[in-house]
């Protein structure tokens, strides 16, 4: 009898890592399948030569510069002459400060003006007719990420949901039968988790009528792992985490709705910036010092980490539509905002988050300007600032002392946590010791900063690595999906939100495993922490919004 039980336990342990790989593979395979065939949206026909130029994007720059989406080789055309863009109401054209002006049906346009089929657009000495996309017959190349566009349906969203739910049920079973277990608390937690997952699925597909659900399914999968890992560590935290995740899903839906109209967001930029700075100011004034950094604010029984929400604001402020991007190339506003954010975080002593903001700042500013000088300059000043920090805050230097030498400091703060993470990663082997059987859970911050180690110990190295790689792959998905974004606002925000998540995860995983210094940031979606999980779901909204289909009803 004992033998049968043991066989079952080991079989389940071995099943989970393999199952993880299967789920992640299935979801990404489904993501690759779903795409409409590559066709131009409209086209411009040169009236002199008769050449048809396909218009591929929702926002297209027209100009003499070779990097323009529609390059016009004419000396009278400015480098960035005008922008042709599509909105819900139809197609529009905006002049982006050209010298010779943009003319629609012979009239010079002053503001954003609607364009209709068969209208004439003149720029410089060129004249174009605005035609339907169907009149273009040549083949267009698709992005490599998407497999051949075929009629075959991808795996149905509800099937993915069943796969994910089953995984969480298995985790619940493991937790119920872990060493020394006397109750079935994890079963109730698991039921609550499944309820949240399926309600979200129902709202998304039935009420909001969204076509795709792969991205959400992937993140539900991660969120569930985070919640179930807490089942045998601290049940109360597990429920808090679940509630926060549900709140995060609501935030996810609200943000998608909020950024539905990319032009409207421009009006909110200043307000969002002010609110974000206020958040940080409140944090600086009322923050309480925990683990050397004052990034927590206590409001009654709830503790929040305002910097987590500022991440979302940061992406808002950083992204922009193409016509604004070309008329207001100045980054100064964003640079000042970034400096305030990074500075405030450094003052709080939360250097990990400061680093995330700084990395994201580099990504956004480069994506917007394409200027390597800005990046190099920013890096140089960051190194300089780093030296100053090391002089002012000696405990940071202490962390560096332990870095790559944790085995010499297993009993003090320089290496205590990292050494235990490595020890228990090794103790878990490839398949883990099972949910609830880990020992790392008794180490402080194991559910947040060290969660990679906890996941690896209890669920196995394979699972931990697969989850981490899947989050990194999220960027590849974001990048591929943005070729069809409705605005550069979505492209920039999706790529940079994904970049932010990857940077954050890298700091978490490599900090805990002593490849980088430990900075104490959370693992996206999995680390326990209400503010953190809400912010992760919020950031996910940007990636979701970049998908062309998000705003098209069934």
């Amino acid at each position, binding site marked *: 009898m*004992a033998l049968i039980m043991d066989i079952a336990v080991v079989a389940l342990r071995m099943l989970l890592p393999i199952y993880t790989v299967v789920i992640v593979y299935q979801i990404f395979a489904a993501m690759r399948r779903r795409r409409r065939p590559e066709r131009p949206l409209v086209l411009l026909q040169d009236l002199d030569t008769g050449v048809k130029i396909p218009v591929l994007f929702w926002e297209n720059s027209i100009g003499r510069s070779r990097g323009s989406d529609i390059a016009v080789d004419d000396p009278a055309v400015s480098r960035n002459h005008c922008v042709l863009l599509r909105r819900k109401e139809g197609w529009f054209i905006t002049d982006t400060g050209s010298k010779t002006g943009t003319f629609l049906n012979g009239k010079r346009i002053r503001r954003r003006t609607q364009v209709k089929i068969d209208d004439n657009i003149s720029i410089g000495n060129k004249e174009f007719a605005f035609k339907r996309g169907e009149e273009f017959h040549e083949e267009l190349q698709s992005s490599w990420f998407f497999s051949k566009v075929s009629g075959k349906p991808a795996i149905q969203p509800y099937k993915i949901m069943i796969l994910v739910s089953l995984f969480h049920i298995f985790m619940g079973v493991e937790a119920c039968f872990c060493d020394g277990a006397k109750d079935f608390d994890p079963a109730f937690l698991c039921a609550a988790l499944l309820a949240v997952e399926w309600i979200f699925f129902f709202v998304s597909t039935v009420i909001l009528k969204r076509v795709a659900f792969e991205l959400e399914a992937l993140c539900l999968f991660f969120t569930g792992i985070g919640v179930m890992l807490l089942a045998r560590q601290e049940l109360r935290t597990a429920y808090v985490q679940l509630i926060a995740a549900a709140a995060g899903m609501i935030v996810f839906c609200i943000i998608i709705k909020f950024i539905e109209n990319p032009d409207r967001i421009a009006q909110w930029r200043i307000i969002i910036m002010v609110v974000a700075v206020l958040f940080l100011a409140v944090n600086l004034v009322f923050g309480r010092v925990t683990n050397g950094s004052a990034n927590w604010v206590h409001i009654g029984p709830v503790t929040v980490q305002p910097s987590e929400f500022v991440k979302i604001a940061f992406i808002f402020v950083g992204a922009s539509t193409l016509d604004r991007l070309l008329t207001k190339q100045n980054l100064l506003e964003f640079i000042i905002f970034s400096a305030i954010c990074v500075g405030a975080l450094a003052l709080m002593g939360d250097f990990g988050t400061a680093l995330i903001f700084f990395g994201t700042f580099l990504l956004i500013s480069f*994506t917007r300007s394409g200027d390597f000088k800005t990046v190099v300059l920013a890096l140089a000043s960051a190194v300089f600032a780093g030296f100053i920090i090391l002089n002012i805050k000696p405990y940071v230097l202490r962390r560096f002392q332990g870095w790559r030498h944790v085995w010499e400091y297993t009993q003090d703060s320089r290496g205590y946590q990292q050494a235990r993470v490595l*020890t228990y990663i*090794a103790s878990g082997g*490839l*398949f883990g010791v099972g949910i609830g059987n880990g020992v790392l859970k008794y180490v402080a911050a194991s559910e947040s900063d060290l969660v990679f180690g906890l996941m690896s110990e209890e669920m196995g*190295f394979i699972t931990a690595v697969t989850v981490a790689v899947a989050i990194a792959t999220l960027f590849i998905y974001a990048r591929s999906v943005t070729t069809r974004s409705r605005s550069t606002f979505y492209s920039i925000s999706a*790529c940079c939100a*994904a970049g932010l998540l990857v940077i954050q995860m890298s700091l978490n995983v490599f900090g805990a495993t002593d490849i980088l210094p430990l900075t104490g940031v959370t693992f996206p979606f999995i680390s326990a922490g209400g503010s953190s999980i809400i912010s992760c779901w919020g950031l996910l909204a940007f990636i979701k919004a970049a998908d062309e289909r998000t705003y098209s009803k069934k």
Partner: protein
Amino acid sequence: MKRILRRSWLIFIVALAFLGGMCFLVVETVLGASDWVDQPYNGHISGSGGLIQAGKITDRNGEVLAESVDGERVYNKDAGIRKSLLHVVGDDSLNISTAVQSQFRSQLTGYSFIWGLDMPKSFRHGNDMELTVDASTCKTAYNALKNYDSGACVIYNYDTGEIICSVSIRTYDPNSPPKITEDNEDKYEGVYLDNVLSSTYTPGSIFKIVTAAAAIENIPDIWSRTWVCNGKEDIGGGDVTCVDAHGTVDIKQAFGDSCNIVFAELAVELGEEKMNAMAKKLGINASFSVSGVKTKKGNYNVKEANKNQLAWSGVGQYNDAVNPMQMAVICGAIAKGGTPVNPYIISGNSGSLLTDLGLSKTGSSLKQMISSSTAQSLGELMRYAVVNDYGESMFGGLTVCAKTGTGETLTGSDTDKNDGWMIGYCTDSDCPLAFACVVRGSSEYGYSTAGQVAKAAMKEAAKSLKK
């Protein structure tokens, strides 16, 4: 749009950097996992239950040193064997960190990188480990050592690297480990240290081997020179003293009689640079690994020394300190024509990934220390010392080359804490053993303290090899 998309590939670099880091982590984990699990704090293996499933540990003849029976760790029946091998085998706790049961606890309990620890009971199987030591030799060495405060005796096969005997004093019985409190901590000072690997002692005259090696390699007429010893000589503004006035001696007699004045003069003549160079070649200040345990580094540093201190350093005083295992390896090098074989203590061990792949290094050669002609000359000096001073019959029928030493740890009248040494090797082809024995806390000379330990242990070790 196109421009934005092109630029966004910058983020791809971030993702690539992450994947690179992940590969690095995977490689580090595969290579390091078996070391990472063996930590005293590891909740999966520490504590009393840690060894319940552990495998058997046996000596070279299959004598069981430790095994788990019905959920309890049982050590050898003979108290002498238990105490003598405490620092090699270890006890239930992880206090003796260099012992096999601490260092390889995860392997003993059946750890593998794939399955990790904490498998359900039915699937656990401990790995057995076979050691190179001979239990009866260790017990003999222990009996000879047990009345001293501190000491060590190591014997290893200089052809294969197998450690036959490794005993450290102080020790205790693993069946009843002492509770160390503030009241009795003096009595158990250093008890968790394996003095063979993790301690250093003042070498005294055995360091003349180093000075002699430097002289042989650097002074061409060393063999034709003679010195006059009056028992005392002023070198560099201070006296260097000898036990006796040895009169006119050549290098052989000086080595055999252990004449301080000759070797002090040689050290001064050779100078700081050449002495340091030879100490470095012989690895005095370096550490090497014995089945995963790093030996403690010795100390020979005459950078700051004045002439008198340099003189004393040449006869193993000043601030000289050496590790017993290192000295045994130097003897092994002399026996092997200058290049020693790295000693090891685990002969059979399934469970470590590297061993499974056949990659773990046992019995490999260390770096060449001295030329074979220097080795031969040193061997002649050490043989001369045995024949003329210690007596040919000291080791029974064994042909031994050796050197004794008495390291004075406190200058002045208090000689109670002398470090007595005897190191050497046997040249018989059926008994290729090198040894280093040291005892602390006797007023007598190395010959009558450590020498007696070496004599007893070597005779027993030779018997076990010929079995």
